[in-house]
């Protein structure tokens, strides 16, 4: 298992660079992760990230884009604006969670 140092602390990451242990995540770490992929977090970003954390806590898996949109009430279009290109993966990365497994 690889490790990487973020903001002076060492974290275990998988072969793609995602944090492997969801329990080490804090909002401070989330802000650092966002910075690393070039995203300045606004309240709108936090709404999505906090939903991901909560939903993962309940469901045990990372919500898909559609689930974030229907359950957190954030339109898909907005998610693409907030996390451009690959919104589902980027949200999961910032939230310190594995990328979603679901198809839709």
């Amino acid at each position, binding site marked *: 298992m690889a490790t990487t140092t973020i903001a002076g602390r060492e974290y275990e990451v998988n072969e793609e660079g995602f944090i492997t242990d969801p329990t080490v995540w804090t909002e401070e770490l989330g802000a650092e992760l966002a910075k690393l992929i070039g995203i300045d977090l606004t309240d709108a970003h936090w709404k999505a990230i906090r939903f991901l954390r909560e939903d993962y806590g309940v469901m045990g898996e990372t919500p898909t884009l559609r689930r974030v949109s229907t359950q957190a009430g954030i339109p898909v279009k907005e998610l693409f604006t907030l996390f451009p290109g690959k919104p589902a993966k980027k949200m999961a990365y910032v939230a310190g969670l594995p990328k979603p497994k679901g198809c*839709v």
Partner: protein
Amino acid sequence: MTTEAAPFVPSFDDDVASDRKLAIICSKGNLDMAYPGLILANAAVGEGIETHLFFTFWGFDMINKETMGDLKFSFVGNTAMHPPGHTGISMHHMLGGLPGATSMATKMLKKSIADLDVPEVPEFLEILSASGCHMWACRMSADMNKLTEDDLYEGVEGIISATDFIELTAGAQMLFI
């Protein structure tokens, strides 16, 4: 590892202009054949891939406002048919020809899809549109069915000829469904 080393961060390819392009031709109007194209298109746009859907022949029913919410599933001719969740039990496909079989099979399939929290076709088109997926309607199919853009789902960008479609998908990977 020293603290000076740059953190290992996933590559989201933001700095590299991806030239991957996907074009999916949707030619079927059966409920079960509508989903593969929609699901693959959704996966592709979510990966930042430029994606085009081209609706032609029976696939036109997927974007015709009058029919898109009411696609049906028949298992006539489908020897792989089985009751939902029972892959070991076979159902003779000719049973699908009995009166009421299509509406029952459609209801069952819709339920299986909804149970997975996968949207119905019109809502799926909305999601794709919001995700930046391009949608095109086939000129010949429109003419055959005497339909205009007003009859089609709003996210469809235009009614175009086969040649137009081939031109605008230059270099794309193609899927025919």
